């Protein structure tokens, strides 16, 4: 359940371009407790969101700036980021 603090969500690389947004703050929706829950919730926003997050093999996540798998918890006040597999170096 939300305690009033927002969740900051950030998007990088082609996710940012396809979704047309770099970051946002949302109130944690009811029933969203994990990264996977949040992705499912975001997919309901429309076709572009559904398409991007349907590509689960190519979408990675970090919670509070640590790489995070689908089962990692998301809590009020967290920073969650979605991005493609990294290609630095």
């Amino acid at each position: 359940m939300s305690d009033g603090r927002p969740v900051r969500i950030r998007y990088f690389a082609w996710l940012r371009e396809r979704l047309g947004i770099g970051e946002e703050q949302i109130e944690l929706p009811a029933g969203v407790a994990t990264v996977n829950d949040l992705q499912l919730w975001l997919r309901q926003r429309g076709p572009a969101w559904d398409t991007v997050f349907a590509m689960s093999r190519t979408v990675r996540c970090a919670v509070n700036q640590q790489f995070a798998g689908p089962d990692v918890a998301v809590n009020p006040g967290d920073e969650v980021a979605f991005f493609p597999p990294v290609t630095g170096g």
Partner: protein
Amino acid sequence: MADVRIAAAAFDVGSEFAALTQSRTDIGGVGCFVGTVRGAAGGRALVALTLEHYPEMTERALAAIAAEAERRWDLLGCRLVHRVGRMVPGDPIVLVLAASAHRQSALEATAFLIDWLKTRAPFWKKESFADGTETWVDARESDDEAAAQWGADQAAIC
């Protein structure tokens, strides 16, 4: 001990080497890797490469990678510099320096650092081609395999 830095401007390998080794007489060897921008990708002429990153996470990730190298090898110094922003063919992108008393640890740690950096630090490359098109670079399985050879990891989620 490790010194990690994100930079928009080009770095100078000589200056970085000097900063790592100055006033030191315990170092017996320094491994060095410099990644540079190639002028073609997939047979097409490249005019620029743009590196995006996740600012608050990047330095933390690089520091964690350097700490792991220091845990595995007896290093006397370690320096990572990674550029972000727009670069052109021939430009340096990334620098890895690892100093040790002996060459084997210095060279192994250097290879480890660049392999892990490629799969664990939040950077993304976008290629701009001469024909005006732009594409985000896909992660390579060969990079995952190179990182995996060093063992013990959560690479699957990175």
